[in-house]
């Protein structure tokens, strides 16, 4: 079980390969990667992610603990970046491994739903015209959490 919070980019393909190579007994490996998407106008210059350092790893580790209590996981991984990113860059990834696919998919979706609304990250979008705006939380994201209760 690995949780990493970092400013530096990560090598998605290498992380996927390393994760899959390290799980013994798993029949199913699921990964999710979140990518900075340009805005509809095509004017996103960069996304800046702020976080609450003293809380972040603690929150992510707690989320992983909840996932492990719900599903029999062979392993799981969360990598989340902070700082300035440009469109196309990966913000974060999760990976889960389990004997069967239902657990691997369930845990990956659960981790994502919790990361979206319960991990202390805030995104700010800077556009090429100099504008800057905090990304608002989406009501769907809050709704997505309810399915796990």
């Amino acid at each position, binding site marked *: 079980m690995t949780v990493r919070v970092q400013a530096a980019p990560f090598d998605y393909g290498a992380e996927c390969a390393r994760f899959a190579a390290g799980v013994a007994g798993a029949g199913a490996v699921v990964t999710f990667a*979140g990518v900075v998407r340009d805005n509809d106008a095509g004017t996103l210059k960069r996304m800046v992610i*702020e976080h*609450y350092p*003293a*809380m972040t790893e*603690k*929150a992510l580790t707690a989320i992983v603990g909840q996932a492990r209590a719900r599903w029999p996981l062979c392993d799981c991984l969360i990598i*989340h970046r902070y700082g300035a990113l440009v469109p196309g860059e990966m*913000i*974060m990834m999760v990976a889960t491994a389990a004997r069967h696919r239902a657990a691997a998919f369930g845990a990956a979706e659960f981790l*994502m739903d919790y*990361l*979206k*609304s*319960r*991990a*202390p*990250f*805030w*995104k*700010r979008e800077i556009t090429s015209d100099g504008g800057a705006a*905090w*990304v*608002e*939380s989406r009501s769907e994201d*809050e709704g997505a959490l309810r399915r796990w209760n």
Partner: protein
Amino acid sequence: MLDVLYFAWVRERIGLPGERVETGAATVRALVAELSATDARHAAAFADISALRVAVDQELTDFDAPLAGAREVAFFPPMTGG
């Protein structure tokens, strides 16, 4: 003494990443009332607490949470991770 931290637009609106406050507030809600009385910036940031989230000692909680023994309180908007 309590460390009070601000993130995202709460930090911008107050104009500080955090401050150390001397308080006898028994709950988060009472602390918010004290902080709001500080100046116009604090009052603006705390005008609508339904738009805010709070963590006490790095654990998400609600505005009725007690502050006895707490060392750090953080205020921020709904999180947008992932």
